[in-house]
Each structure stands twice: as C-alpha cells, then as structure tokens.
C-alpha cells in the first residue's frame, strides 16, 4: 500500500467502510487459523484416562469452523468484490 503524500487523513463513510472490510479480509485467515489450531489444546487420548474428545465433537468443530470461515469469506466477497474490481482497474 503506497501512501501518497496527498492522500487524505480521513475518509468519507463509504471508503471508510470499504477499508474496514478489507481489514477483515486480511484478518479472516488468521482467525480461521487460530480456531483450527485449537485442537492442539485438546487432550491426547491416554489409555488410563478416558477424557478424550469424541470424534463426533471433533468433526463438528473442525467442519463448523470451516463452514463459518467460508460463510464469512462469502459475505466479505459480497461486500467488497465490486470495489476491489474498481480499484484494480483504476
């Protein structure tokens, strides 16, 4: 992102919203990554202790995060695609 010397310090509402959406686009993968690394905290099954996470829970969790990530990505795409295209052409 080059900062032009003449670029304004404050933006009108629309551009402001767009920039925040782009922040979200950038941050989303980190968020999803964070959620997917949560299983690292789950206890590894131990024959003596029976407190392991059942597979059905693990499946629901991993696929739930996946679906939520896709949904967020889809919503962000709906909100930003047009403006990104304009900026790319402009």
């Amino acid at each position, binding site marked *: *992102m*080059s900062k032009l010397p003449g670029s304004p310090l404050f933006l009108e509402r629309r551009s402001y919203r767009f920039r925040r959406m*782009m922040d979200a*686009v*950038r941050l*989303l*993968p*980190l968020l*999803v*990554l964070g959620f*997917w*690394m949560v*299983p*690292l905290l*789950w206890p*590894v*099954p131990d024959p003596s202790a029976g407190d*392991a*996470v*059942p*597979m*059905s*829970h*693990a*499946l629901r969790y*991993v*696929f739930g995060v*996946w*679906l939520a*990530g*896709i*949904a967020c*990505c*889809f919503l962000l*795409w709906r909100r*930003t*695609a047009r403006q*990104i*295209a304009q900026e*790319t052409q402009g």
Partner: protein
Amino acid sequence: MVSLNQLVAVCLLYVVGLFAVAFAAERAAARGRGDWLLRSPLVYTLSLSIYCTAWTFYGAVGYAARSGLEFVTIYLGPSLVMIGWWWILRRLVRIGRSHRVTSVADLISSRYGKSNLLAILVTIMAVIGVTPYIALQLQSVTLSLSIFASAEPQAPSGGGQINSAQAAFWVAVGLALFTVLFGTRNLNANERHHGVVIAIAVEAVVKLLALLAVGAFVVWGVAGGVEQTLAQIDRSAIGQWQVEGGRWTALTLLAAAAFICLPRMFQVLVVENGDERHLQTASWAFPLYLMLMSLFVVPIAVVGLDLLPEGSNPDLFVLSLPLSQGQNSLAMFAFLGGFSSATSMVIVATLALSTMVSNHIVMPIWLTYGQNTVQQSGDVRHVVILSRRLSILLIISLGYCYYRLSGGGGALAAIGTISFGGVAQFLPVLLGGIFWRGATRTGAICGLTVGFALWVYTMLLPSFGPGAALSASTFQNGLFGLQWLRPEALFGINGLDPTVHAVLWSLSINALVFIAVSLFSFPAPVERLQGAQFVNIFDHSTAARGWSASVAASEDLMIMAQRILGAAEAQGFFRAQAQLQEKHDGLPEPTPRFVQALERELAASVGAATAHAMVAQLVGGASVSVQDLLAVADESAQMLEYSSQLEIKSRALTDTAAKLRSANDKLTQLSHQKDSFLSQISHELRTPMTSIRAFSEILRDAEGLGPEEKTRYASIIHSETIRLTRLLDDLLDLSVLENGEVSLNRQRGVLRDVLDQAVTTARAANTRVIKIDRESAGEDIVLDTDLDRLVQVFINLITNAQKYCVADDPQLSIRAHQRGRRIIVDLIDNGAGIDAASQTLIFEKFSRLPGQGGEGAGLGLAICREIIKRLEGDISYLTDVSGTGFRVELPIAQTDI
C-alpha cells in the same frame, strides 16, 4: 457385477466425452464465443480442484481409517491459503499476469534475475518432487481396477488379480497419450488451455458428485442417518481425537505450502487465471469444494472398517463399500470419480512440468548447442512442442518407475506427503522473492539445494524402505556411521514423527540458509530490477525498460518472433505494436518498450529466461544494466543539479536587476531632487541676493535717506547675508562631514543635559510652540561623544517636528533607554508621518518633502545622518509608529562600566 471389460469401455466412453467437451470449448474460444463460461469464476474454481487427486478420492478415506481426523489437515492448509488470498495469491496472480509467467520455475528464475541455473534447479526439483505423486495416481487407478477384477465372478478365486505392473503400464500409456493430445496443441503456455480447463472442470464435478454419492449412500443407505453415523463413528476404532499436535500443525503448513508451490496448482491458480477477480470468488468457493470433498470421508472410513473384512485396503473403501453392498452402478460412478481425479491431476501436472522442462532445460540447450541461431528462418515451434511431448513421456515414465520401485504397496497418503514435502521446498524462495527485495539468486540456489537435499535424505529415500535406497545400517547408525546424520533423527533429535521431522528440518534449514546467504551476497543488476518489480508489483505493474535496442533490426526480431509465435500471430503482434507507435505501415521501430513487449510475448511461449537469452542474441546483449541505469540517473541528477544552479543564478540575476532598477529609480529621483534643489537653492540664494542688491542700490543711489532708514536697510542686508551664510555653512558642513574631514571634540556628559540644551535652543529659535514630553528617568545616561554635534542633531530633529508637525496640538515625545551597549533615543511626534515612498529619501541631501513649505534647504537630516555616522551611531526613521518618529542610536561610554 461389473466386468472389467465393461469398466474399460465406460472409461473410454468417458474419455471420449471429455475430448468432445474440450474440443467444443476450444472451438468456442477460437470463435470468441462462450466467454461467459470459459472465463467464469466457476470454471476457475473448479479447475483449482485438481488439488483433489486420487489421493483425496481414495487416499483420504484410507488416511482417515488409519489416523482419524488427521487427513483433514491436507485440506485445511489450502483452505487457509484461499481464505487468505489477499496476502499471497493476489500478489502471485498479479505478478504472473504482468510478467507473463509460465510456471513456478519461470517465476522464481524471473524474480532472481532471469537466471537459467535457478530455473533448471527448480524444474529438476519439481520433476523429482512430483514423481511420487504421479506414481500415486497410477497406483490408485491400478488398485481400483484390481478391485473390480478381483470381484469378477468368472475369474477363478484367487486368480482375479490382474497383473498390476502391466495394468499400471497401460494406465501410464493412456494418461501420456491423453496429455499429449490435450495439452500440447497450442504452444503459448501463457495462453489459457480452454479445452483442458473445461475438461478439468467437468472432471471436478464428476469426482465431487461421485464422492458425495458414495457418502450419501453410506450415511443414509447403510448407517441409517446422521445421528446414527455419528454414534457409529464414536464407537469405532477412530472414535477419539488422537491427532498429535506436531503433525496437525506440520501437515497443515505443508499442505498450505504445497498448494502454492505445486507446479500444477501454480498452473491453474496463476497461469490459467483469466481475471484477478475470480480469485476472490474462489476464496470462498474453493474452500467450500474442499469441505464437501472431505465431508463424508470419516463416515465412509468408519462404515468401511465396520462392514468390510479385516485386512481390506482402506484406500479403496470408496469402491469396495458400494460393491460389497451390491451397488454396482454407484461403484462404477465412484470409479469414474477416482479416474477423473487421477487423470486431471496427471494431465495438468505433466503439462506444467513439461512446459518447465522444455522451456528451462531443452530450449536453452538447443539454443546453446544447436548450430542454430535465432536469426535463422524456420519454425522453432516444432522443437518446443516436440520437447514438451517428450517431457510428458519422461515425467510419466518417471512416475511409473517410482511406482515399480516403491512396490506399489504404500499408503496413498504417505506417498502424497512425500511429494508435498519436496515441492514445499520452493516456499521460502517464492515468498522471499515476492516480499523481500533483499533475496538474492545465490541465496535462493543455496536454500533450495540444501532444503531439497534434506528432503531427499529424510523423506524420499527412506520412503523406499530400509535396505532399498538407504541401507539399514544408515537408518540405524546414520550416514558414514555418524549418529547425528540418521535420516529420521537428524542432529540426534529422536522421537519426532518422521514427517514432522523431515518437514521441520528441511523447511527451516532451507529458509535459514536462503536468508543468511541472501544477507551476505550481492544481487546482480537484473536481479535488483526484477526484485524491485516483483516486491512492489502493486505500485507499478509495468516493467522498467530493459533493452536499448537500437542495434536490433526489426526484421531480425520479426524472423525470430515468427519462428516462435507462428507467422500469423507474430505479424499480428508486430502490426499492433506498429500501430501503438502510430506507424501505419511497415515494422515497428525497435524501441526499448517494443523489445520489452516482445520479450514478454516470447516469454509466454518459452519462458522468461529463454526469451531473455534469445532477445539478447539479437540485441547483442545490450540489456541495460543497473550500472547503466545508475549512470543515467547520475547524469540526470547532474542535469537536475545544474538546472537548479541555473535557477539559483537566474534568481540572483533577477534580484540584482531588481536592486539595480531600484537604485536607478533612486538615482533618477535624486537627480530630479538635485534639479529641483538647484532651482530651489538658486531661488533661495536669489531671494536674499535680490533684496541685498536692491537695498544696497537704494543705499548707494537714493539721496535723502534718514539714518533710521539707512539702519533698517543695512540690517535687512545684514540678516539676508546671515541667511546666506547659514545656507553656505550648512553646505560646507555637510561637505566636510561627508568627506570625513571633521574632527570630533569628545566630551563626557549626561544625555539629559544634551536634550535640555537642544530643547531650549530649538524653542528659542522657533516661534511655533510644540509640547515636549520627556521622561527624565531614562535620560540619566552618561555619554562619551562630541556633545555639541549631538546637540545639533537633536536641535534639528526637534526643529523639524516644530516646523512640520501638522497636528492641532503638536506634541513631541522623547524617550531614551539603554539596550545592551547602545543608547536609544526615540523622538516621536503626533503628526501625519511620512509616506513610504519618501521614507527612503529623507536622509538624502537636498530632499524636501513635497507639499510642505518651509524655508529649509533639505540638508538638515542629511547632516544629522552624517554626524551620527561619525559618532558611530545610527539614525533611522521609525515606520511602526503613528506619527513621524526618528530613532537615534549611540554607543554608550566605554569607560562607564
């Protein structure tokens, strides 16, 4: 039951159908129709699905049956990369489009100074890295065929096994044929292969639907619903979360890296990308595809483990499960899905690799060692196409060899992971290349070599098993008996999972060496240019000028371009360029911009390094180096400096001219003043002279004058003479002062006394009354100067105020104070002041303010100034007061302290 022959027939039909679709797509593209589909984000997303190969289709279930949920990491990594498209993929796609990159090797070589060595290195690594992957596809197709064969009822029990080596061979031949026919029809690798892309999109749909169909059958047909399936999962052998944290992280990272670096993924992600906007659509659509592909993997694995006999290959549950339930058509559909996965992967992978091999290995060798030079006429294209076809055969035969060597018995996922580890070695160099300008070619070569060597030693060679490529003693005791060189426990760190171990060491040491060597090496000029362009791709998407092509004749370039692009395309390109140069006939001028464009166009066919080398042959290697650029920059900096000096000089000249003009104005004004003074002085002299002459004539000639009259006339003469004398005295005084001939009579005195004397004298000499406002406290300052002269100055100033102050109630305030080593006396009246134009003149000789009467000759202030100058002081007009104000500054007495 499905017979093997039926299966083969269906496969062939399917392939023919694919061909038909591909042909239709190419024809439509050639006619410029069907863009809405060919260039749609949907097709782009579906073409990305070649990530899901037979490994996904068969191997994922086997992986899940063996290690539970760990299989999903292979899809989490790419999902993350896609969701994070803004960070890496967007850059890659923009770079790929603006530099017309043909492959991952082309990108890396182009970034590091169009280095052919690096391109060759990356190509060889990619070929070696992808070989296990192709073997995986062969293995999966062969396995899937074998399961149908073994299920065949006619076959005698136990004799249903087909000859897997033979089957694999024929599968390999079929795939090679398929790829050659599909992929090498047009040369321009940068141009999108519409037919291939559409065929892949169809295959993507087929494999997704097939897997979903099997999954749905398993969940609702066999297990009896979602809840029952989940319950069954929890009861099964893989019913608990048992993924090791290290593997979870390492495999996710590995899959993400491979997704970016795999040659075939790079081909569909970057090279075949027709529109940057599609990337964002794919950012949610492709993760969705991946999620759907992995959705039923665990259920299929669990139900398969439950229903199928002990010891059946879990990699084939997708097929064997429907077969065991008597669902033959579903099994057939699943087979087609697996076949689709394998073929689409092999087609695109070999296409990408063959482009790399022909562009980076065959063409440079041909250019160097052939007796050909590029100026010769004749089509180069058949060489390129032939080399691509041979490369395809070579790559597929390598895959076949790996399959035979590894025995075809390994788990699919394990083989795939090895492949991922190999291509992931490009990641540090790739990311370093697009984010870090300091990355150098030497660093890239060192990092890649070290990382790749580690991968071969810790992952590839051990995959053949102890005693095959590496001896059992090497496994036990390390290379050359060095314990710290054991392939699965480098540096003596035991207990790591082999995959985590290999990924950790190879990638981290690769990155470390790459960064360290980059830090201590210096990049070549072209490298620096390319580095700046790649890293700042969004600041300027146009390339900097690379050629000074005055030597290259357009004809030579035309001949070369025709041989590579084909006559029609080359002529079209040259015509377009000529029009850009606004030449409507003939060939374009070989401007640097044109040669640059031509190089890019050629790069699309033969890769950046080769195109660069070919153009260099014609242009005589006159590529502009950074030194040249720096020299140019220096020159322009000098010119800039010179012109700024000129500017300064011209500004100085302007200033001088302005000063001269004002001086001239002043002189003119002075000259006018002198003229007017002369007339004034002659008038002044004349008036007393006239009366002196008249009265002296009366005294001489008139008779009978009374003594009073004589006295009166004589006294008039006398006073007129005094007036004359005073005038002449003033003139003389001024002349003496100006010539510096005056001798000062220094005395010590107090300022108050000086002012007292001046006020008294001035009042006595003038009838007009002015109120004088003094502050005697400030006047208690000792002076060491010519007091009489000073009194004269003050008298003059006070008298002026008396004469010229126009206020009704004239008032003069005199304020004295000491500032530093100076005494300051301000004399300010409440009159009208002096207008700005006259302010510069009042201290000049003979200056009289216009419109003011008075009998002065205009010498008073001039004399004052001369006196004060002699007294080492200063007199000035105060501009910032309301009335007329003068400031007299004098040095204080030296010995006063």
